[in-house]
């Protein structure tokens, strides 16, 4: 270990601000990129599930109106 104690490690020979700024920002950017990709994958999967529910609703409404038509058609005969 080049530094004898923790504070001098953080101090980085006086350049602490710049070193930790660069390491911190790169870690942050990679993290944000990873999270964005991860959550957009989850969003896509939930979107597919919502799509299923929506199709279900459309089919149900279509059947319902079809049966309603048969009923009215049945009465008129």
């Amino acid at each position, binding site marked *: 270990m080049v530094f004898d104690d923790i504070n001098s490690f953080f101090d980085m020979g006086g350049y602490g601000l710049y070193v930790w700024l660069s390491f911190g920002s790169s870690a942050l950017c990679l993290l944000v990129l990873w999270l964005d990709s991860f959550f957009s994958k989850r969003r896509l999967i939930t979107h597919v599930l919502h799509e299923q529910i929506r199709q279900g609703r*459309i089919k*149900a*409404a279509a059947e319902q*109106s079809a049966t309603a038509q048969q009923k009215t058609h049945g009465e008129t005969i």
Partner: protein
Amino acid sequence: MSVISVANLSVVKRDRLLFENLNFAVEQGSLLYVKGQNGAGKTSMLRVLAGLIEADAGEVYFTLQNIKDCREHYHQHLVYFGHKLGINSSLSAVENLQYWCQQHEVVISVDTIFYTLAQLNLVGLEDIPVANLSAGQQRRVALARFWFKHNAKLWILDEPFTALDTQGIELITKQITTFLSGGGAVVMTSHQALCIDYPTDELTLEYRI
């Protein structure tokens, strides 16, 4: 008492005289059907009636008040449906209608919007961007506003039936007849033969070169 009346109205568009000295009045509970060839000025006349554009001469009165003086009051009781549907394609149908209702001070709950859209058989298409809907479905979303603005006294419809299937046309005509029997006034144009079983007065605009 006439809901909307017009005194020697004339409109010139791109220095072509569309019509001049037009006089008519629409009473409560009556339907005015404006007929004429393409280019006869039907749309311009309706836009002048709605107050969107200024006429070159003549006045338009809403309940005997000039619409220039009582613009706000007039627009509170008017619903207009033109060639442009008035819905944003990146918003969903529900968002569009909510925005329209807030504009026109119509207090409405989301379920009524969903219920009305279901009546216009748009089930399942309420919350996706309107761009994904077909032309006919988009038109129905736009026409849903006639189910919301209850305090309207006057409806102005510019060819509401284009791109609608028979079932859609049936729905709209039923709604128009209920509105008329409830004491509203309707001014409309249409290409299809008008199949509304309701006493209608007709106004024909000649085509002038």
